[in-house]
C-alpha cells in the first residue's frame, strides 16, 4: 500500500523538476568591464566574485610558486596598512575577503554589509591594487607555504596527484604544484612577487559576478572604483598542454596502511558538443552518488573502500578524466581490477535506459539546488562567463541534459573510455601490484 503511494509520488515529482529562477543582468562599466549581477535586496549584504584567468599557470620560468605566494600576500598588508592593520580594518567592517589561486584562475571572493559597502570596497581595492609585499610578511607567509609543501610531500593524496600530473602533463605548468617547490619558493624575491602580480592581475582577463543588495548603477561604479588602476594587459596565456598518459600502473612506495590510488586518462573539453553526454555517462559510472556503478561494485558489494569516484576534469588548457579510490594495502589490487572491469564494460556496452533516465533526473533536479545563496550564485556566474556561456544558459542547461540519448552515451563511452589506457598511480604498500615499465 505504502509502496504504491511512494511510486505515485515519485512519478509526480519527476514530472515537475524544480526551476531555479535566477535573473542575471549583464552590466558594463564606464571603463568597459563587464559584470553579471543578480539583484536581491532581501538581505542587506553583497557577495562579489572576481576571477583573473591564467592563475598560477602564468608563473614565469624558474619562478614556480610566485603567483601562489603573491596571492597569499594580498591580505597581508596594503596601502598604508601593514598585515595586522589590514586584518583589523576588515574585522571592524565585518567584511571578509578570500583570495585563492589554482591552475586556471586567481579568485577573489568578497562579502560585505550594505552599510559598509564603500569602506569595504576601498579596503579590497587596496589589497588588489596596492599590496605592499612587506619583507616581514613575505618571510612569514613563505614559512607557511614551505610548511604546506613539506606536508604535501608526506600526504598520500598529494603524492598521488603530483605523480599523476607529472605523468599526464610533461613540462606544462599543470605538471607541477602551484605552490612551487622548497627550492623555487625559497629563492623568490619581492621583485618576483611584484612581477607575478602584474602578470596575472590585469584588466584583459577579469570576470565579475555580484549577488545581493546592490543596483546595476552601484555595481558598475564599484567595478571601476575597484579595478580601474590595474594594468590593461597581463602575461600571455600558456599554450595548451599535450596530454600523453600511457596505460599502466605506477606504484609510489609509502609506508601507510591504506593505499591511495588516482587513475585516469585523457578527457573531454567543456566546449566539446559531447560534453553533456560524457557528463551523463560519468554520472552513471562514478559520479559521486551512492548509486554509481563504481560505488555499487567496489563499496556496496565488496566493501573494498569507503569511497570511489570518477570525474571529468576539463581545465582551460587540457582535459583529463580522473578517478580515485583508497583501500587497505592488501585489497587495493582487487579494487583496481574491479574498476578496470567496470571501465571496460561501460566502454563496450554503454549504459542502460534506466541508468540514463536516473542520471538525467538526478542531474536536472540537482542543478537548481546549486543556486542556494548569494556567494554560490556569484561563483556560478563567473564560471559561466569564463566558459563563454550566455546569461540565459541556466534556463536551457537542463534541456541539454535531457537531449542526451542512449545512442549518444554508447558512442561517447566507446570513444572516451579506454580501460587499457587507464593509468593508476598507487601510493602505499600495495600487495600484488608493481609499476609497469616506462614506455
Amino acid at each position, binding site marked *: 500500500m*505504502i509502496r504504491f503511494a*511512494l511510486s505515485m*509520488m*515519485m512519478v509526480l*515529482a*519527476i514530472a515537475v*523538476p*524544480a*526551476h531555479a529562477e535566477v535573473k542575471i543582468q549583464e552590466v558594463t562599466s564606464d571603463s568597459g568591464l563587464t559584470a553579471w549581477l543578480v539583484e536581491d535586496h532581501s538581505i*542587506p*549584504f553583497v557577495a562579489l566574485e572576481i576571477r583573473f584567468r591564467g592563475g598560477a599557470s602564468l608563473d614565469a620560468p624558474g619562478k614556480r610558486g610566485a603567483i601562489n605566494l603573491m596571492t*597569499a600576500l594580498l591580505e*597581508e598588508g596594503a596601502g598604508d596598512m601593514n598585515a*595586522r592593520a589590514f*586584518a583589523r580594518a576588515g*574585522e571592524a567592517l*565585518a567584511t571578509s575577503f578570500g583570495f585563492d589561486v589554482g591552475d586556471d584562475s586567481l579568485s577573489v571572493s568578497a562579502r560585505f*554589509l550594505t552599510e559598509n559597502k564603500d569602506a569595504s570596497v576601498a579596503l579590497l581595492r587596496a589589497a588588489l591594487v596596492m599590496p605592499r609585499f612587506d619583507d*616581514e610578511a613575505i*618571510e*612569514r*607567509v613563505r*614559512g*607557511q607555504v614551505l*610548511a*604546506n609543501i*613539506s*606536508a604535501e*610531500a*608526506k*600526504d*598520500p593524496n*598529494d603524492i598521488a596527484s603530483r605523480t599523476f600530473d607529472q605523468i599526464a602533463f610533461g613540462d606544462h605548468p599543470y605538471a607541477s604544484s602551484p605552490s612551487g617547490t622548497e627550492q623555487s619558493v625559497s629563492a623568490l624575491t619581492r621583485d618576483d612577487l611584484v612581477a607575478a602580480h602584474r602578470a596575472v592581475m590585469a584588466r584583459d582577463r577579469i570576470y565579475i559576478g555580484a549577488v545581493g543588495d546592490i543596483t546595476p548603477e552601484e555595481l558598475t561604479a564599484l567595478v571601476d572604483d575597484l579595478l580601474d588602476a590595474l594594468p590593461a594587459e597581463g602575461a600571455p596565456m600558456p599554450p595548451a598542454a599535450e596530454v600523453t598518459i600511457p596505460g599502466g600502473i605506477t606504484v609510489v612506495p*609509502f*609506508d*601507510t*596502511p*591504506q593505499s*591511495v590510488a588516482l587513475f585516469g586518462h585523457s578527457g573531454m573539453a567543456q566546449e566539446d558538443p559531447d560534453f553533456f553526454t560524457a557528463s551523463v555517462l560519468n554520472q552513471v559510472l562514478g559520479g559521486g*552518488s*551512492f*548509486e554509481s556503478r563504481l560505488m555499487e561494485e567496489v*563499496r*556496496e558489494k*565488496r*566493501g573494498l573502500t*569507503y569511497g570511489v569516484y570518477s570525474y571529468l576534469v576539463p581545465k582551460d588548457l587540457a582535459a583529463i578524466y580522473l578517478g580515485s579510490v*583508497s*583501500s*587497505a594495502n592488501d*585489497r587495493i589490487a582487487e579494487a583496481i581490477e574491479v574498476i578496470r572491469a567496470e571501465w571496460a564494460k561501460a566502454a563496450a556496452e554503454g549504459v542502460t535506459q534506466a541508468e540514463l533516465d536516473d542520471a538525467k*533526473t*538526478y*542531474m*536536472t*533536479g*540537482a542543478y*537548481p*539546488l546549486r543556486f*542556494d545563496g548569494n556567494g554560490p550564485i556569484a561563483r556560478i556566474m563567473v564560471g559561466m562567463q569564463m566558459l563563454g556561456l550566455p546569461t540565459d544558459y541556466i534556463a536551457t542547461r537542463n534541456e541539454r541534459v535531457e537531449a542526451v540519448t542512449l545512442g549518444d552515451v554508447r558512442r561517447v563511452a566507446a570513444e572516451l573510455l579506454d580501460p587499457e589506457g587507464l593509468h593508476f598511480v598507487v601510493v602505499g604498500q600495495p600487495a600484488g601490484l608493481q609499476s609497469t615499465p616506462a614506455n
Partner: protein
Amino acid sequence: MIRLTALAAFFSLLPGFLAADNEAVTAFELDNGMQVIVVEDHRAPVVQHMVWYRAGSADEPKGSSGVAHFLEHLLFKATDKLEAGELSATVARNGGRDNAFTSYDYTAYFQRVAADRLELMMSMESDRMRNIRLTEDNIRTERDVIIEERNQRTENNPSALFGEQMSAAQYLNHRYGVPIIGWMHEMRTLDMQDALSFYETYYAPNNAILVVSGDVTPEDVRRLAEKYYGVIPANPDLPERIRTKEPPQTAERRLIFRDARVAQPYVRRSYLAPERDPGDQKAAAALTILAEILGGGTTSYLANALQFDEPIATYSGAFYRGVSLDDTTFTILAVPRSGISLQEAEDAMDAALVDFLVDGVDAEQLERIKLQIRADQIYARDDVDRIANRYGQALASGLTVEDVQAWPDVLEAVTAEDIVQVARDVFDIRASVTGWLMREEVTQ
C-alpha cells in the same frame, strides 16, 4: 594568510557564532515527543530535511565502540518497504542528495532536495526509524567499509591518530575519550546484535528531532510530520541520558606521538572545559570569545605573540567546542617554524598565556568580535541550512530552543572581566593534556 593543509581539520571546529534575530524559526512538538524545528527561507525552491537522534558514540555500550556510526551506515540498507540502497537511489532520482553523520552526542540523517519532494523524504526517513531489515551479508560488507573509512580518516593520518591519543588521555572516565569511529579492534567485532540493540534502544520519535529548512511553511511541515512521524509510538523504555562523570582531574598529562609520516611537528594542549548548559551558557560564551581572542587569525593574541612579535610559530590557534552534552575541551596549538623546537614553541605558548592573563582583553578587539557576531546574524540568513544544523546540534546536545535563541545575547553580554576569569578557571594545568606530534626518530 595561508592555512596549513595538515591542520585543515581544526578549522571545522571553529565555533560558529550563532544567530537568532530575523530567523524565521518555528518550534513545536508532536504528541509522541518528537521535537520539530522549521527554518523558513522562500528565496529558492529547496528544502533540507534532517532527523537528529540523541544517540552518538558516547552513548555506546563498553566494548562496542563505533556501533553508533556503524548503525548510521546500516540505515541505508533495506527496510520493510525499501530495498537496500533504495532510499538514496530515490533521493538521487529526484535530484537530491542525502547523507548522514555521527558525532559523540548525536547521529543525524539528511536529504537536500526540491521543496515539493519533502513528503517523499519524510515517508522514507520515518520508515527507517523503526523498520530496518539487516542481513549478515550487510554486516560483513559494511563492517569492511567502516574499517576502510577508519583507514582513510585516521590510520592514514598521523595528526588524527595523535588526536585520538590526546582525547583518550584527556578523559579519565568519560566516553569522549573513545573515538567516534571506534577503536579498530572493537570495530572488527561489531555484529548484528550490537547494531540492532543500539537501534532498538535509541531510534524512536521521543529521542529524535526533525529539522526542516528552506522553502516550507510550519503548517505544511506539521501536517506531514504528524502523518509520517506522529504515527510512530514513543519508546517508553528510552533510557535517561546519564553518562559517567569525570573525577577531579589532578595530574597534568604529557604525551609524545611519533610517526615517520609527520611532515610538520606541532604542540597541542587541551584543557577540560565547561560546555553550554541549558539556561547556563555564560561561561561557554566567554570561552567562545576567548578562543577567538587567542586564536582567531591574524589579529589574535597568540598570532601576535608567536607569529608577529617573535618568529616562533608558522601557525597558532585556539579552539573551543561549546555544544556538547558533557564537559568539553579548550585547545591551543602552535606549529613551530623550522629551527624552533617543540619545547621552545610550548614555552612561548605558555608565556603568551601568562602575559594574556596579565594584559587582559584589548577592548577594541572585543568590540570588533562582537560586531562580527552581530553581522553574522545578517550573513546567516543567506544559509538557512546552517541555522538548521545549529538547532539540530544544540537540541541533540542537551540545549533548548530558548538557549539557541538566547545565545547571541549571552555572547553580547560577555565582558572583558568574564573572559579573563574564565581563562583563569580553565587554564588549570592539572586538567590538561600536552601533546607533541613528532617525526619518528631514525636510529642507526
